């Protein structure tokens, strides 16, 4: 069964099949959400403590207006961080890699790389937490002028590297087979 049959991205070719969708490791969003946890904690703490300190009644509309105002800001901030995480995605299809890079709400960058242009794939797991949680960077050196293609803070970088190299070999084999099929029978007889 096709795991990604409900997935579709802009620019996907009609016969193109999604093999894997990669997002940054959950620890990355957890780190960003630490500030949200702190803000929620402060909000709850202020509801408990502030009426006592400022000697204002707990049913004061001014107090609840300010609290609900900060709750809205926190809620919006939660989703801005979530969009930055969730829409920052690498899509591996059966013939290319598409990188959709989302930066907050107003910046979006899309790039793609054919497997045939890959020259070298390397991984980098740097630090204690990335080693324990098994996440890191995967660098792809390309043949073109674009230089490097980077998977940043992705889970299981070694597995991903293996998958990319496997796909690269598969595409190369397909290309050779296609060339053989297209070769003229006269030329084959000459050899």
């Amino acid at each position, binding site marked *: 069964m096709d795991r990604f049959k*409900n*997935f*579709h*991205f802009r620019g996907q070719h009609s016969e193109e099949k999604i093999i894997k*969708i990669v997002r940054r490791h959950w620890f990355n969003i957890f780190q960003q959400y630490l500030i949200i946890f702190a803000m929620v904690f402060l909000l709850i703490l202020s509801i408990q403590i502030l009426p006592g300190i400022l000697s204002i009644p707990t049913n004061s*509309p*001014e107090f*609840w*207006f300010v609290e*609900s*105002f900060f*709750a*809205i800001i926190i*809620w*919006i901030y939660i*989703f*801005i961080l*979530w*969009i930055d995480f*969730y*829409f920052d*995605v690498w*899509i591996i299809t059966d013939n290319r890699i598409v990188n*959709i890079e*989302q930066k907050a*709400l107003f910046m*979006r960058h899309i790039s793609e790389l054919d497997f045939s242009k890959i020259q070298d794939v390397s991984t980098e797991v740097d630090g204690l937490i990335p080693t324990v949680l098994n996440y890191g960077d995967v660098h792809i050196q390309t043949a073109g002028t674009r230089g490097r293609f980077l998977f940043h803070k992705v889970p299981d970088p070694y597995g991903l590297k293996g998958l990319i190299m496997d796909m690269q070999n598969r595409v190369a084999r397909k290309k050779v087979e296609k060339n053989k099929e297209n070769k003229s029978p006269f030329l084959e007889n000459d050899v």
Partner: protein
Amino acid sequence: MYAMANTFYLLVLLGFFIVSLFIIYHIVKYSINKNSSQVMLLIFVPVMIFLVLLNIIFFSRIKLEEFFIFSQLTI
């Protein structure tokens, strides 16, 4: 003074509305999976509406005339 406070509050509400629209636009337009975009909308929109309505209710309950007299006295 009250008109200024009301206008300023309306501008803040407009800001919330525009940011919310941007978030909804991203969820609808750029999601690669329609099911997850529906879930995200179902979480974001009702909570946002609830919080904004709550905020409007609390703002409407603030007695601005008392509030401004109090702040003038403290200054």
